[in-house]
């Protein structure tokens, strides 16, 4: 297990935002250090597992803790979590994360807006694909739609403004670029992102044992596939939805 790089432990700002919610905020930046703190703090709260804990919602720079009911001692709960965070080990902790490899077909059949991206970026279609597949993206949070991942960080050269008029329906599995962001639609939905590809994986299936393929904190990579491979994976997934776990490996967070 690798040790996490030494970093100063940041004390979050805590605020009670409702009868059952506490918001912890770690600065104002979207960066790796903030992300480490958000993940570590989330893990600490989850492992603490006090009985009033309902769920936590991590985002770029905040962790919101929801309680099952309104406690009589809210201030104590906040104090206890803050002091536990302060005392927890700084340098010895490691984070084991899931690494997902998302197969994406960038064939022209699925890349409806590639010409728009080509025109805007002055890159060739091949360059766009390889720049999109190169990074390992951090899943900062899930929202907007069930299972929709907010990813960081798209190569700046690929940034392309959203469509002027959003499409009425973007199919689930669609991979797109919207401004400085990239993402995957987990459900058929209206959407204004530039469509550049499609994955045969179902990111969200409420009837599957693991309904959500992607979780906040995952590391995610795209891997290009052919139309034939797309069809093959799609039919395999339709027959064996649980086989989606083949696309997950565990690794230590660097």
């Amino acid at each position, binding site marked *: 297990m690798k040790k996490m790089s030494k970093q100063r432990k940041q004390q979050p700002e805590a605020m009670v935002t409702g009868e059952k919610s506490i918001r912890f905020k770690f600065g104002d930046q979207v960066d790796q250090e903030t992300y480490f703190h958000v993940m570590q703090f989330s893990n600490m709260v989850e492992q603490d597992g006090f009985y009033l804990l309902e769920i936590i919602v991590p985002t*770029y*720079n905040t962790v*919101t803790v929801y309680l099952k009911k*309104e406690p009589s001692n809210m201030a104590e709960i906040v104090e206890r979590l803050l002091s536990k965070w302060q005392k927890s080990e700084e340098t010895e902790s490691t984070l084991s994360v899931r690494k997902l490899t998302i197969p994406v077909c960038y064939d022209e059949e699925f890349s409806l807006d590639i010409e728009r991206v080509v025109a805007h970026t002055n890159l060739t279609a091949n360059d766009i694909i390889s720049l999109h597949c190169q990074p390992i993206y951090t899943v900062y949070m*899930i*929202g907007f*739609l069930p299972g929709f991942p907010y990813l960081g960080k798209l190569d700046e050269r690929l940034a392309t403004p959203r469509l002027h008029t959003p499409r009425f329906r973007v199919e689930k599995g669609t991979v797109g670029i919207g401004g400085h962001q990239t993402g995957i639609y987990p*459900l058929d939905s209206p959407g204004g992102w530039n469509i550049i590809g499609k994955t045969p994986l179902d990111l969200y299936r409420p009837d599957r044992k693991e309904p959500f393929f992607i979780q*906040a904190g995952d590391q995610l990579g795209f891997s290009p596939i052919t139309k034939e491979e797309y069809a093959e994976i799609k039919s395999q997934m339709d027959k064996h939805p649980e086989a989606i776990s083949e696309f997950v490996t565990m690794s230590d967070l660097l």
Partner: protein
Amino acid sequence: MIPLFKVKKVGTYGSIQDKGRFGYQRFGVPVSGPMDAKAYHLGQYIIGNDENSPSLELFLGGQEFEVLSDHRIVITGADLGVMLDGAPVPTWKTFTIFKGQILSFTRAIEGSIAYVIPEGGFEAELLLGSGSVYPKGLLGTPLKRDRILYAKRESGGGFQTGLCRSEVPSYSQQIQVKVWRSPHLAMFTEVALEEFFQTTYTLKMGDRMGYLLDGPKLDFVHSSDILSEATQFGTIQVPNSGHPIILMADAQTIGGYATIGKIASDDLWKVAQLKKGGEIKFHFI
């Protein structure tokens, strides 16, 4: 499973809701559940159900059902001019409906949302642990014409029970609500914040996701854009348009706009029952 209703008219909107779908917000799934938790819980209490029994939530009337089995039910929440075979029926107390009768919700007389709760609750498919319908997330479907709604079990035919009149909530269309402070207040101009708490807002339109308010445009020091963070039922979000939106039971789990605060939970039912044009004033807790 007892066939209870056949949907003849779907009306404005209707869906099955239980207490809600807890524990999936970090995956982007709203909590859902009743818009007016007070009317929902009182209804379950009156008829003696478990508090998580799936119930039918109806918006603004227009719905019509053919009764398929004799059963005991209770109707709570808004007065939607409910009729059984054309004759008015009591709300906030149980009564027995008989096979072949027509139960109709004619118009919103007081409030906007009513609950129909059969003894034992409706049958509902549990998706992610809840029977609450959230169509956008493939979690159930709203009322559809000709659909059959099933009760979980036969009616035991117990005594009729009700709430005494003094306990029945009334649905004022001029309300005041308490607000928990948001961490984003510094993003609004001082004038905007003052204006927010002095203004009487009116409800422009709304659904289970959010209620849009009409009032003066609120200004920001820079803009309303924030790094997206958690939102919940009752969050008052103000997008760059400057017009507040109250996030309701199907609230998105995270949002990218500045918020003013969150409405106190025990005031949310009053907000839910506002009709178009209803008035609302805010003050900090």
